[in-house]
């Protein structure tokens, strides 16, 4: 339970920003965590199904990761090592802010190294380094309903999911092909989970979609504003929608990372001057840094050295 005194510490001067003694472990009260854990268990039992839950008003705004934060707060324990990324990077302000939130309210260890983390909260990316058994990845989800842009009424989409009636989505993809010659969706590319539910993978680039398939880690999805939780248990089939004559393809670059030379990672384009100068760098900052370190001092930092 929080008390008013805490809130003056929350935003007053910078020196008082390092602890939050009046809040429960990981902020949420235990009854709320129990409610969320029940929703998570149901979500794991029915892969890809959106479970409604009593999303709370968090001290961070809706749309900024409140669903992911509530899921993380409900599954995190004192022994966990947390990594938080936004757009693949540990250092963007929103990732920093959420990491600080858990440092202050749960006092857990944090890391930027994908393989050291037991729990990874992410917005819009899946790390390049393959996840392992025992890890949990929590996605922040803005719009859990993959068909919302095609049918905004939840009463309708709920029925469509119930009947596994996904013609609407296939027609949309078909119309893309008819108009452009290819499917014009590049992120939040819909997937079929366990041959049953069509699911939004959250706005990850479709480059990351194949990583979801048969992943050894537990994948949890939290949508705070829309009040839904869903999940993909370890080793579950996740198939990106496609047609036989138009198979699913991921983005490719005719470039490599300017910092680490990687050719197999998702590259962000960075504008370097006002004369059209551009370079490509890895979106996954940990992957990029690890590769740079390895290049500097082989054979230190052998991959997979630490795994819990």
């Amino acid at each position: 339970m929080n008390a008013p005194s805490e809130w003056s510490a929350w935003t007053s001067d910078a020196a008082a920003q390092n602890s939050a003694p009046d809040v429960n472990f990981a902020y949420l009260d235990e009854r709320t965590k129990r409610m969320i854990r029940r929703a998570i268990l149901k979500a794991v039992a029915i892969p890809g199904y959106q479970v409604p839950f009593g999303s709370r008003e968090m001290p961070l705004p809706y749309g900024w990761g409140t669903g992911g934060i509530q899921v993380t707060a409900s599954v995190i324990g004192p022994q966990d090592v947390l990594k938080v990324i936004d757009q693949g990077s540990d250092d963007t302000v929103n990732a920093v802010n959420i990491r600080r939130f858990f440092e202050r309210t749960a006092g857990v260890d944090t890391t930027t190294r994908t393989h050291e983390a037991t729990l990874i909260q992410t917005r819009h990316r899946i790390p390049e380094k393959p996840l392992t058994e025992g890890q949990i990845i929590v996605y922040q989800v803005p719009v859990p309903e993959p068909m919302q842009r095609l049918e905004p009424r939840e009463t309708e989409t709920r029925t469509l999911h119930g009947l596994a009636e996904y013609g609407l989505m296939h027609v949309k993809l078909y119309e893309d092909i008819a108009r452009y010659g290819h499917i014009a969706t590049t992120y939040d590319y819909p997937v079929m989970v366990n041959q049953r539910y069509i699911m939004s993978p959250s706005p990850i680039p479709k480059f990351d979609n194949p990583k979801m398939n048969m992943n050894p880690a537990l994948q949890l999805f939290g949508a705070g504003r829309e009040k839904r939780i869903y999940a993909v248990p370890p080793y579950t089939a996740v198939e990106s929608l496609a047609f036989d004559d138009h198979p699913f393809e991921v983005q490719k670059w005719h470039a490599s990372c300017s910092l680490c030379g990687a050719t197999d990672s998702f590259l962000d384009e960075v504008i370097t001057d006002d004369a059209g100068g551009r370079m490509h760098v890895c979106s996954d900052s940990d992957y990029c840094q690890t590769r740079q370190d390895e290049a500097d001092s082989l054979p230190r930092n052998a991959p997979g050295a630490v795994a819990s």
Partner: protein
Amino acid sequence: MYVAVKGGETAILNSYKLLAEQRRGDTAQPELSVPQICQQLKLSVDRVMTEGSVYDPELAALAIKQASGDLVEAIFLLRAYRATLPRLGSTCPLNTSSMQLDRRISATFKDLPGGQVLGPTYDYTQRLLDFSLLANAQILDKPPEIADLPDTDAAPISEPEAVPRVVDLLNQEGLIETFAPPAGDPTPSDLTREPMRFPADRATRLQNLARGDEGFLLAMAYSTQRGYSHTHPFVGEVRLGQVAVEIAPEELGFAISIGDIEITECEMVNQFGGSKTEPPKFTRGYGLAFGHSERKAMAMSLVDRALRADELGEAIQSPAQMQEFVLSHSDSLEASGFVQHLKLPHYVDFQSELELVRKMRAQATNTSDQTEEAA
């Protein structure tokens, strides 16, 4: 040379510092105190309590101070505070017939039991800037036109006895619909604990509207007056005053008062043409807000009535009649958060779109080249 963006934490801490300075403003001016906000910005406090769903003027005033007067931000602060508070119990339904009235207006009857009480209102002020306030005039230096009036504290504004509600008066003739509590009087669902599911029952809808953004509800209500689902409304009454809040602990077996709160209640009376099974009669829309929040209570009652279209067999054609449209977009926290989340980095998504647009443009160029060659 490109350097990966780092130092987010320092930037955040610095932004706190700058924000604190911005909030304080020029230190040559005395700092606003929370009691000052509570007393002198009452209508702001009332709105923050209503949409923040906590009746606590002091905390609402604190939130307003902390939010530099941004009421939506203040509502957010109060909601986040309330989210993890324990639930100790439920109150009995408020009995607004026996509230102590400071203001009570009916647009349907010229006079009625309990009378019309104008009370404090901006309704009949002539909106001229009052420059005496600029000079921080004391209440002693009243403007000349009110200087001669007797002190209102001396004159009793209302009688403490029960003042029947207009809808109850209409009901004596059977002209207006009535609502018996449903069988077993089930506890209404609590939107702050359970997510909204559609279709939502009226109690749930009213909860959502009570917490809904005043500006949004005002616009939706206004749309019903401009042909997007006309509901022929009349203000049965608007009342403002103090009402006792009672709880009935099981171990006591009777209700006890735990204090008074100030509320604004609006009962809208709407025409209804009748149907095959029912003769024509009046229907109702209901609005309730903490403190003095007439605009909110009235807008809420209009939207409540519009949302009953399905129940009353009216065609659902306008946004204000559509549950999912109204209830999914009424919450200022959800709306403000999601609109403003666009400030967050979207590098990855934008990169994906860049690739796509380039690809499609290349295709378009190729196609037009081929067309030219063919021609």
